[in-house]
């Protein structure tokens, strides 16, 4: 018996209506299976639909047509509340622009997903500290985002993404704003998390070095997956 796919997309389309008659087919019939523990890169030119795909996989958005199954459950039958719960318990997001909450300290940012799940204050604190230690930021708990370098911010973001032990880590250009040394650090952390937790990882990137870390490589063009290869 094969394990149930983490996410399954069937002929998914996502159409944006920008003008009167204008419609943009950001995704135009994508079918895709992401299995537990996979490490996937998504490449492709700007505007090819990479972020759109990630948003759908991450349950931030819903398809215009087609089906998405999250661990076997059809997403179209879920309400906003269910999708929020799955994002909270099953998915970790890492954004190009880090997206830490500016009024929270590093520790509070990492503890936020735990707070959202109702973890008690003391345990929240212990776990958030441990996670910050894991990404090499012990001692920076009380720093605010504006007091951290870009690389440090992204490491806090990774710690936050890992807080609830997700089955799926989604990263959109996680190194887009970092120099190569810092980028390598971040990628190492991502890989370590992948290895240690067994979470599936999807990394969207323009950068071949980043893509090279993955075991499976998707290439997109005009809203379609034009290549899906293993290796690396």
């Amino acid at each position, binding site marked *: 018996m094969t394990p149930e796919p983490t996410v399954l997309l069937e002929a998914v389309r996502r159409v944006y209506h920008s003008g009167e008659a204008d419609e943009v087919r950001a995704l135009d019939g994508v079918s895709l299976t992401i299995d537990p523990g996979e490490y996937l890169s998504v490449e492709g030119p700007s505007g090819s639909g990479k*972020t*759109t795909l990630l*948003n759908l996989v*991450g349950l*931030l*958005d819903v398809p215009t047509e087609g089906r998405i199954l999250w661990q076997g459950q059809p997403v179209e039958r879920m309400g*906003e*509340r269910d999708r*929020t*719960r*799955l*994002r*909270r*318990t099953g*998915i*970790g*997001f890492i*954004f190009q622009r880090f*997206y*830490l*909450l*500016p*009024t*929270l300290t590093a520790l*509070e940012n990492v503890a*936020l*997903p735990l*707070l*959202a*799940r109702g973890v008690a*204050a003391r345990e929240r604190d212990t776990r958030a500290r441990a996670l910050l230690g894991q990404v090499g930021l012990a001692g920076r708990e009380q720093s605010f985002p504006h007091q951290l370098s870009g690389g440090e911010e992204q490491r806090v973001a990774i710690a*936050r*993404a890992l807080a*609830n032990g997700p089955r799926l880590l989604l990263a959109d250009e996680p190194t887009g704003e970092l120099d190569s040394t810092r980028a390598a650090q971040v990628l190492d952390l991502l890989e370590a998390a992948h290895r240690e937790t067994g979470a599936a990882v999807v990394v969207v990137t323009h950068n071949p070095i980043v893509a090279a870390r993955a075991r499976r490589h998707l290439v997109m063009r005009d809203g379609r997956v034009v290549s899906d290869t293993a290796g690396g």
Partner: protein
Amino acid sequence: MNASRWLVHWRNLRHRTAQTVLAVAAIAVAVALPVVLLSVGGGVYTHELASVQDAGFSISVDAAADHGIAGAHALVHEIDGLAGVAAASPILSVAVEIFPENGSGVPALVEGIIPSAFTATQSSAERSLLPASLTLGDPDDTIHYANGTYDGPSSDQVLLSTPLLQTLNITPGSSVLVSPTANRSAGISVTVVGGFGLPPGLLGPSPLFVALLPLSQLQSLVGLGRSPGGSLLDDADSIQVAVLPSLAGNPAAVARVASAVQALVPYYSVTSLTQQTSEIRAAQAVITGFYVGLSSVGLLVSLLFLVIILMRRVEQERTSIGIQRAIGVPGWRVSRDLVLEAEALTLSGGVAGIAGGVLVISALARWGSPTVSEIASLAVYEPVTLLALLAGLLLMGLLASLLPVRRALRLPLPEVLR
């Protein structure tokens, strides 16, 4: 909710200092208005009510004819026995001539009273003008009256108003002649035992030259005690009835006492002065309604202002809200945070507004023109009103956050997080 959550809200508010200060100031101004209006207005009415309720007597028994109340001593005794009556005081007013030991006379109004009953039916302001113990030798006027025989020894004492003492140029201790005619030989000699001040007349000047004599002695002097044929007259002009202090502010209770008195004397007219109380209460209700209406306009404007501020805040924080939604913070938590922020703003505004209102009132009381200062110093801070105001503000915070919460929950995540 723990301390650190409040800390985060505080940081959020501080993050947008200008907005926060503006919102709090707007609410504070809107709150200070009702605090000032209601506290001062309520204070003025409370004061007026208190002075009406302190008027002393509140029921008056009058006869159509001059000196038309017969059997006054007995009647007062009966009225005294009615439930709710604190004291009943008969009054006989007669124009007389008062002569010093040597010199010409001065026309004056002499009032025959039962000293203890008279004192009991005066307002505290009036009482303060009278000598501390107003005895006139026979506090209950029973000795000379002697059960209607008028055979008892008379006390021969009189009290004169201060202007009368000055005009006659005499001091307590000396004697004067009180005569019902312009002829001093028709008078009786009485000892002046003291003077009293005159209350400022509400409807115009009150008579300056007034004297107080025991009722029975005045009756004897002017022939209203017993008729020449020997039958008992015991006449007076009116009887003032004071109700028990606990009933004084209650128009219905006073009316009940008045009708009991009326039942006793169907042939005299009985009027109650509680009309004033109910008129003051009615006026207060109208003006309070007006103040509340006026204040609601202010509060409504600040509510709209708060909605705008909160909407702006949602716009400014759309990324933060989007991040929280993306990492799975439940919608109710995001909503609660917004509501708490709104409540923090309204409550700070409320507290600042109440403090501001109190400051304004005390500044007016201290540095205002004499009239303004007097009115301001009457202000009464009703805890119930202030609590209601704060409760209203809590509701306002909730209302103000409805639209912003809706907006926050409907932010399109993919667009917010581009």
